């Protein structure tokens, strides 16, 4: 039986409080939400998925080469068409035999978990759900729209899904996104929507063979902070079970990741019996009963509070997009040739003198040999050798929109250590939030971010952030 062997989670460190919306609009239309996570301008579901996936493998102490199945669930993919799984695999450093994309509704997260449990047979798999939906600025969906990712490592040991039940009702209009639109909508027929949510969720829960009164953790899909509680009214399920593991009050609506983030919270708290319910508008629900424990590595804390204008900037509501083209240009084929370096920091060890070179091409920086390089993966952590903070107006065109949205960033030369001694200097952008700064000698960690988008193609790679642990 395939089990849940580890869980990783990630949410952007930016937060906005409901009071900021109240100040701007006179009201905050997302019940039960106090703050919500806001993706930075260079974050999207793919970068959040990579951050959560890495943590799940860490938690379960499973090396990337063990992963033979990858499922990715999101309702807000960065492109409407285009296979994201090869890039996500590359960013995670895994080479799965089979990959699957799940979308269409916020139920995609639990659907991916169910499919992974049924598909993975020996070895390890990874299920990742990541979402950061948006709505029109004056609609309640936008007030609730948060961001987050949960990743579940599948393997031989850990927690088990012991019960499963599904339901479906013909109730369109609850949460949907039109073709060609970035904005999630709902009709706003309150009574109809509440009852459709409740009926679909309850039908799935009631299909489980479980004594509900004994459940201490209920990770129920949370489009806002109120609906999960409304849904279980009348069931023999304690409201505190919902409150014990909910993330919506701090992160907002995390879409496909919502029930899995609840499961992550339950496992973090060593609650060994969790009801997980995924729901998608239209409508369908999947209920699971998870028993047992699994290790977790969660990065869900907020670090920086945004005000409403800063929030609008981050979301690109106030900026005019990148400037018209010309000048220096890196073609997509050129970029693709550098993907092992961009995604996994693969340097080269000179066959002649053993020095490290980055990128591993051309003459060896030390001995000048034109021989071969043996690929070596650099550490995630490095030391700043030179650094500058680029002020508004100083960014090259590829980064003008990002800077307009996120503000100043730094650019550094970072010495990353190799696996068997030696280090090599690598240029990297430094993500700075909330007045952070970096100086020569500081330690920094690599993270996955969007580097830039040109001609509709987003180039993903690593940037660095101030290190979590000291030097």
């Amino acid at each position, binding site marked *: 039986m395939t089990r849940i062997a580890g869980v990783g989670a990630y949410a952007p460190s930016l937060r906005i409080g409901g009071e900021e919306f109240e100040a701007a609009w006179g009201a905050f239309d997302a019940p039960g939400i106090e703050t919500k996570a806001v993706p930075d301008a260079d974050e999207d579901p793919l970068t959040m998925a990579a951050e959560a996936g890495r943590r799940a493998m860490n938690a379960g102490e499973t090396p990337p080469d063990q992963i033979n199945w990858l499922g990715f669930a999101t309702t807000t993919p960065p492109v409407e068409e285009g296979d994201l799984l090869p890039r996500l695999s590359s960013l995670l450093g895994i080479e799965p035999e089979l990959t699957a994309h799940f979308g269409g509704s916020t139920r995609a997260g639990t659907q991916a978990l169910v499919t992974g449990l049924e598909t993975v047979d020996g070895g390890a798999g990874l299920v990742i759900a990541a979402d950061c939906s948006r709505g029109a600025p004056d609609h309640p969906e936008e007030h609730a729209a948060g961001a987050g990712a949960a990743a579940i490592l599948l393997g031989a040991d850990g927690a088990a899904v012991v019960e499963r039940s599904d339901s479906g009702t013909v109730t369109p209009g609850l949460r949907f996104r039109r073709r060609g639109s970035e904005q999630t909508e709902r009709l706003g027929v309150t009574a109809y929507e509440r009852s459709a949510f409740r009926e679909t969720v309850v039908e799935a829960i009631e299909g489980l063979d479980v004594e509900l009164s004994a459940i201490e953790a209920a990770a129920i899909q949370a489009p806002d902070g109120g609906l999960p509680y409304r849904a279980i009214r009348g069931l023999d399920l304690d409201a505190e079970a919902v409150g014990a593991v909910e993330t919506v009050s701090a992160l907002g609506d995390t879409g496909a990741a919502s029930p899995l983030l609840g499961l992550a919270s339950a496992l973090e708290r060593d609650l060994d019996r969790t009801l997980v319910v995924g729901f998608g508008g239209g409508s369908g629900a999947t209920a699971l009963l998870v028993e047992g424990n699994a290790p977790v590595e969660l990065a869900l804390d907020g670090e920086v509070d945004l005000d409403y204008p800063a929030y609008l900037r981050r979301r690109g509501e106030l900026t005019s997009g990148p*400037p*018209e*083209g*010309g*000048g*220096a*240009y*890196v073609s997509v084929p*050129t970029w693709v040739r*550098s993907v092992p370096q961009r995604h996994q920091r693969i340097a080269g060890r000179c066959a002649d003198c053993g020095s490290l070179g*980055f*990128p591993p091409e051309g003459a060896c*920086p030390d001995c000048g040999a034109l021989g071969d390089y043996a690929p070596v993966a650099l550490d995630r952590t490095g030391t700043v*050798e*030179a*650094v*500058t*903070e*680029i*002020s508004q*107006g*100083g*960014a*090259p*065109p*590829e*980064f*003008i929109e990002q*800077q307009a949205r996120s503000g100043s*960033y730094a*650019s*550094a*030369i970072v010495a990353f250590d190799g696996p068997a001694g030696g280090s090599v*200097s*690598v*240029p*990297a*952008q430094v993500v700075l939030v909330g007045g952070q700064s970096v*100086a*020569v*000698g500081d330690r920094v960690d690599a993270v996955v971010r969007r*580097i*830039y988008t040109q001609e509709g193609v987003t180039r993903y790679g690593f940037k660095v952030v101030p290190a979590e642990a000291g030097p």
Partner: protein
Amino acid sequence: MRDAYLIGAGQTAFGAFPDESYRSLFAEAYEKAVESVGNGFDSESIDEAVVATLGVGGRQLGLPGPAVTEHVGLHNVPCTRVENACAAGGSAVRTAVQAVKSGMADVVLAGGVEVMTDMSGDVTKYWLGVSGETEWERLTGTTFSGVYAQMASAYLESTEATHDHLSQVAVKNHANGAENPDAHLNFGCSLDDARSAPTVASPLNLYDCCPTSDGAAAILIASEEVAKDVSNEPIRVAGVGSASGRVGLFQRDTYTSIPATIEAGRQAFEMAEVGPSALDFAELHDCFTVAELLAYEDLGFCDRGEAYTLIEDGVTALDGDLPVNPSGGLKSKGHPIGATGTGQLVEVFKQLRGRAGSRQVDGARRALTHNVGGSGGAVVVHVLESAVAA
């Protein structure tokens, strides 16, 4: 190899000239260079042309050389465009010197031109930093200010120098440029002005950065025979040095020195058979204030880590022992990329002939020019001396 001589030099003012084209600017510099020779010099005797330009804005990326020489009526000569980013001008001079020394040509025109201020905001953004290492360095979000700021971060960390010393470089060069009618920013600035300017890329602020300019500069290099015939005051090209370096800063062993400057300087001093102490002044590539301090050390004007003492003690001021950038340098005179390197020789021409007006370096006989491409991917150094000084 025979000697090569600087017999003529002229330039436009550097600045923003919306009424001029790259061709009209080049023509003005060319005509001034030809007129400066004297003794009835005939432009018909020019038998080769080398044109330096990066081509900012993409206005004539192919064949910019012939496009400007045809405009001044210089036809049927070998004409080559040289591209070495901000060192294009110095490289054009070196190519002209090489042609004369080799005997393949007797009179060579080396000219440079750039127009940088007539583009839309969007196009300007795309052209800034096109000479940085494109795939990695630029894609961490740097243009040139960022790369030199990284060098400054490492330099200030590893030496006794402070940001105030960088500001003092700006103050000195503005003081010189205020006396230069051809300078783009020909006004003085106080230390407070320089200290308190808005940050561009920390630790560099606006006063640590040179402007982007329009302008052209042209010089004439000739054989000894021609030089003695047409010029009363020929200037000998005593030393030439040039070296390439890693394009990306991260690929170098050091961020507090430009290795290509060390090598180019070594070559030029060796050929000239002099050292830094024999110089009366120098025109150094101060695209950013920190670059001037690095050049002091790389060219041997002082020991490692001691550059700040030269600026602090006024050694490199106009009335100091070794004035640096009497023209105002890139910082104040301006930086029209392709014209910068040839423009440095225009200043040398004026100074060594004693015609630099209120910024004249007393008794100037021997000078050095230093021209850097990118953050050090290409460097050209020349040592020039009055024929009577040799």
